[in-house]
């Protein structure tokens, strides 16, 4: 299984993390996983994912980082 691609949006200003994630989704292969790291719960990203057939689950790390794992349904 290939290493998941990672976008670290924690030190980026909005809307840059969202832009980078949307760009990465364009090239996400079936079975591939994209990991996005943020300090917030990005509801706009979640709604884009839900509406466009992507699966996502998020996990809160002890340092407050929200780790979101995205893959195609």
């Amino acid at each position, binding site marked *: 299984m290939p290493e998941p691609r990672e976008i670290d949006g*924690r030190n980026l*200003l909005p809307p840059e993390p969202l832009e980078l994630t949307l760009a990465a989704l364009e090239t996400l292969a079936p079975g591939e996983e994209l990991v996005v790291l943020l*300090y917030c719960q*990005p*509801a706009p990203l979640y709604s884009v994912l839900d509406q466009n057939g992507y699966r996502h689950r998020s996990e*809160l790390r002890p340092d407050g980082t929200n780790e979101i794992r995205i893959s195609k349904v």
Partner: protein
Amino acid sequence: MQPTLSFEQAPPISVPYRFFLTAPLFGVTAGLLLTWLGPAALASRWTPGAAALTHLIAAGLMLQTMCGALLQFVAVAAGANIWRPRLVAAVVHPLITAGALLLAMGFALGLPFLFRLAAALLAAPIGLFVGVLALALIKTPARGMTLHSLRLAVFGLLVTLTLGVTLAGTLGWPGDWPLSLPFLTLVNVHVAWGLGGWALLLVIGVSYLVVPMFQLTPAYPVWLTRLLPAGLFLALLAWSLQLGREMPPHWLAAVALAGMLLAGLYAVTTLRLQSRRRRHVSDATLVFWRGAMVLLLILSLSWLLFAALPRLDGQPRAPLWLGILALPGVFVSVINGMLYKIVPFLNWLHLQRQGDPRQPPPNMKQMIPERAMRGQMFLHFAAVALLLAALPWPSLARPAGLAFAASCLWLEWNLVGAVRQYARLLRDRIGAAGSGRGS
């Protein structure tokens, strides 16, 4: 608690923009009025000019932006559904615009019928606004201290309005008004709820979300996010007891001190968080916020100084010093800074949804030139400094008024430029999407 943004419920862009584009014009009017009236307006807080200027800023500039921003923010940040935002904006915007203008004219000209008219024009739309906002904020499933602060802030607006209408009734029907509360007490409680309840609680609630997100700072400490809204609200309730019975002066002084200490604590914490931001990039919004927090700290310290030195407290210009620090100083600075973040962001958000989704997203930085924002920011802070300096040196009142009018006009220019840029980019995107389909 983690901040959450949800764009799906965002109302149409015209809903907040009508408020944002009207707000600076009230600042221009206030600056020109001060230029016209000159030093006499700043002789004490009780001059007709000072009351007119205060309400042009508080019920004009501030109320406009806060209403527009809340209609947007509550939907996006709290995931709350606003009932028919287009209709609410269409009713609220023209009425509060006319109401605030008539109120300022009532003070400046001393005509009772203008107070009656202004009270009616402001009470109906603000009542509608409070009802719609309260419903959305109660029904939303979202949680968190931002939401909690917003609920208290909206309650603060309701109390401010109720006391304001009572005061306008006293001025509108001199001698015939059935409510016989002491005028000074009503004014003091009205001011406290307007500035400490509505405005400061709103700024605090919004800052919990936007300071970490847009300025890349650590989050506010959880204990502080709980203490500030609850503490301020309790202080306001305690301060309001004077409406029911005469309270001993030391009690009122202690309550005011508690409120000011909380405000100072909030300012210091925000400044500390900003100094620990993860990326040391500085933009106009950050400097506006920092300037506002420094001014809030000076406001709290000034209050302490006045309380400790009765010789200073007895000066008729002492309350004006606090008022200038609070209104053009703290709140107009925060509003200015937020507009420079909100408007480019809304442009980006709404453009992103238009046209061909395969087009590259618009660039937020191309909405308002950074140089224009910084130039206007320097002028704004120069105007605040001049306004404060006009208290010990009254000959500076007219230059201060002109500088404030000019900075608000420049803000308007920058915002209009952003809206025109939005229209241009929208045309380009829709045109490109059309030609892409045709090819």
